[in-house]
């Protein structure tokens, strides 16, 4: 690969040497003519001598160009040959950089010195070592010195600028590679100012000393003056062109780059960096522009990165919102969200459908008319004032749980019932910023409840007729005093008790059903609970064998309530106490009035209730003694009904129990006339 590239690479050196040689040759041919004619050397022998003397000097100059210059440019060649991968640590690049930036001035100086010295040496040789050979004019010596100086000062800017121009592409390339690899190239050149001063001095001094040497020699022929003027005329533009290219070129490149930035309107990798042709002020300007481009590029990328990130976040947010919407739309529950002003922000599909409207927009459109349109009612049919609907309640700061609302559903032209929960949404400061409501359609549940209730009512009613017949005829037969054996009597009594139990079960079932529906209507009789307890004891006592019921305290306690229901409680508690004291013993009743309340307790010393079963004791259809020796049958609704009865009277119902020790069931009711 290296070999393959080397021919093309060496054209670089050959090109430089060739151009330098060509330029040099022009003057190498012209200048000696002027020199010879200026000094008035005319004889063919003398001219031959001068030419003979000049030849080795020129040869030295040629060697300088053809051998020393390529030798100086070797690091660049080496870097070229190494290729992109052949310079891992950048050493070749650094050396090439040093070369490319130092060569113009260094070789320019050598080149100028070669010219100057050639003619100085020639003049000295003509004057001293072989003085008799040519009768050098008396002023020949100073004139020759002036001529040599002219050559030096002319060659210096020419060589410097020419090599700067010739090496500029390479310098630019190197600088860009070094920049890309973040390598600082060594070499610091004279400032632009110093260079301009140098050029200025040289450009003045060269023609001045050139013409001075002519003027110093008397009687220089006009043709010689004209010829020397011609040389100056050739030299001037060539020199100026090189200087212009060496100094103006880089500036033009910077200007172009800056114009590019303006034209692009943005900075990224597509905007090329400015090559650094010389490491002077212009080079530093270019470097500064490059740095600026880099910074701008970085910040552009940062901005773009931010934009990309922002777009990504927006996308994530969009996706989340989409997911949320998908989840919400597939929920069975209707979800709606309002702002603090009560305006709808969001409603899911179930919510819109639940309101009988096709879309969120439709709901939003109808929002304010909904109460009028849908006629929100409580399950009992009472119209709910707008402020008592779940959303306004939540807006007022309330957390609504399971409010049942019935409303007209326009699409199906039927009533629907929802169970709605709503809660305020608060900001960090606790201010209400909105409300979220979740509504569950319970229309079918309510219908099922109604059906169940209807079933229970019909079944219960139909059961009552056969119960009445069984009970009635058993009683009738028992009433006939003659012709009944004792076993027949026992049988009839058992039939009667069975009918009573059936009746009690039916009544319990109806009670539970009515309780679930919240349809209890309680009477408002004035009842003395002490008397009520006494009556219950009196009713039960005759049938007791192993038990005794004792009233340990009986304060007069008048309460307002439903007599039949309170009797039911008292009877049930006593029956329970007897039932769960299988070994007999005493059951105590206490009726104590104090602080506007009456406390009634029924205490037994029976089997009690296991601790783990106590929390469930008031659940309907829960039977603590199922499948135990104390399972006496029943539906397990007695205590549930008792508790509900007491609570419907504004009282409290509770118990304490210890397994194997017995139980105490208690309730309290507000006394008549007591506040609250």
């Amino acid at each position, binding site marked *: 690969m290296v070999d393959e590239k080397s021919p093309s690479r060496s054209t670089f050196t050959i090109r430089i040497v060739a151009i330098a040689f060509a330029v040099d040759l022009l003057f190498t041919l012209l200048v000696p003519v002027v020199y010879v004619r200026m000094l008035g050397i005319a004889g063919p022998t003398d001219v031959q001598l001068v030419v003979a003397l000049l030849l080795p000097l020129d040869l030295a100059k040629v060697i300088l160009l053809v051998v020393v210059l390529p030798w100086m440019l070797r690091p660049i060649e080496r870097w070229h040959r190494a290729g992109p991968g052949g310079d891992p640590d950048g050493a070749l690049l650094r050396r090439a950089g040093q070369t490319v930036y130092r060569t113009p001035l260094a070789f320019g100086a050598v080149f100028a010195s070669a010219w100057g010295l050639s003619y100085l040496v020639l003049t000295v040789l003509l004057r001293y070592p072989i003085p008799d050979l040519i009768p050098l004019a008396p002023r020949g010596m100073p004139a020759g010195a002036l001529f040599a100086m002219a050559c030096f000062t002319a060659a210096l800017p020419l060589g410097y600028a020419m090599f700067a121009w010739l090496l500029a592409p390479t310098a630019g390339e190197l600088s860009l590679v070094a920049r890309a690899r973040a390598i600082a190239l060594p070499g610091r050149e004279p400032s632009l100012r110093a260079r301009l001063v140098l050029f200025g001095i040289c450009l003045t001094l060269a023609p001045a000393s050139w013409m001075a040497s002519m003027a110093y020699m008397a009687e220089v022929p006009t043709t010689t003056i004209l010829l020397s003027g011609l040389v100056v005329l050739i030299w001037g533009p060539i020199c100026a062109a090189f200087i212009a290219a060496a100094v103006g070129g880089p500036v033009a490149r910077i200007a172009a780059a800056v114009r590019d930035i303006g034209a692009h309107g943005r900075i990224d990798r597509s905007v090329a960096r400015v090559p650094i042709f010389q490491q002077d002020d212009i080079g530093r300007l270019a470097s500064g522009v490059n740095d600026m481009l880099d910074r701008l590029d970085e910040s552009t990328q940062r901005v773009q990165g931010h934009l990309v990130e922002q777009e990504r976040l927006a996308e994530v947010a969009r996706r989340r919102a989409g997911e949320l919407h998908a989840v919400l739309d597939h929920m069975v529950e209707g979800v709606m969200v309002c702002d603090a002003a009560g305006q709808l922000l969001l409603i899911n599909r179930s919510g819109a459908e639940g309101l009988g409207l096709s879309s969120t927009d439709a709901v939003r459109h109808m929002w304010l008319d909904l109460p009028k349109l849908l006629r929100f009612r409580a399950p009992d049919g009472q119209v709910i004032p707008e402020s008592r609907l779940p959303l306004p309640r939540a807006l007022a700061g309330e957390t609504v749980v399971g409010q049942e609302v019935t409303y007209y559903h326009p699409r199906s032209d039927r009533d629907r019932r929802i169970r709605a929960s709503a809660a305020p949404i608060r900001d960090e400061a606790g201010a209400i910023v909105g409300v979220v409501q979740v509504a569950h359609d319970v229309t079918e549940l309510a219908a099922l409840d109604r059906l169940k209730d209807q079933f229970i009512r019909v079944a*219960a*009613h139909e059961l*009552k*007729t056969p*119960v*009445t*017949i069984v*009970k*009635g*005829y058993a*009683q*009738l037969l028992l*009433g006939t005093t003659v012709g009944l054996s004792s076993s027949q009597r026992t049988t009839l009594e058992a039939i009667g008790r069975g*009918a009573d139990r059936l*009746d009690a079960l039916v*009544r319990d079932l*109806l009670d539970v059903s009515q309780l679930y529906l919240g349809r209890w209507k309680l009477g408002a009789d004035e009842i003395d609970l002490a008397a009520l307890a006494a009556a219950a004891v009196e009713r039960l006592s005759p049938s007791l064998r192993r038990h005794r019921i004792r009233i340990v305290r009986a304060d007069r306690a008048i309460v307002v309530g439903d007599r039949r229901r309170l009797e039911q409680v008292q009877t049930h508690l006593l029956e329970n106490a007897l039932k769960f004291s299988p070994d007999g013993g005493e059951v105590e009743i206490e009726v104590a009035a104090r602080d506007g309340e009456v406390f009634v307790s029924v205490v037994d010393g029976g089997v009690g209730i296991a601790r783990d079963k106590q929390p469930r004791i008031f659940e309907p259809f829960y039977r603590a003694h199922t499948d135990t020796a104390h399972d006496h049958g029943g539906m397990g609704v007695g205590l549930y009904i008792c508790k509900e009865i007491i609570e419907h009277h504004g009282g409290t119902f509770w118990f304490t129990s210890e397994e194997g020790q017995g139980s105490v069931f208690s309730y309290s009711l507000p006394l008549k006339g007591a506040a609250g």
Partner: protein
Amino acid sequence: MVMKGAKTVLLVEDDEDIASLVVLLLDELGYNVERAANGREALATLERGLPHLILLDMKMPVMNGWAFAAEFRARHQRGAPVVVFSAADDAAKRAEEIDADGWIGKPFEFEDFRSLIRRWLEPRE
């Protein structure tokens, strides 16, 4: 079985067995009983003269208790006390609904039944 001078009870009840039971009980108490299996029969019976008491079941075929009560009030106003004779949990409510004078629930204790009937037919002066 119709006793002269004894008070008459009109029993409006569609269930044969219950009706027979009630007839036996009222007989035992010494009252005359007229029976009707539904409201329409009862109204026809009333055309022959008003009883001292009407024991009225509510759920009956042909003409139920509600319809009968409305028709009775229209024709005879408070010509005889009406006592609703219905399943226990309903009875009081039904009585209220048709503005009856009292109610007896089913099933019933004989003692309660007897005292209630006596209370309606032999009010203390």
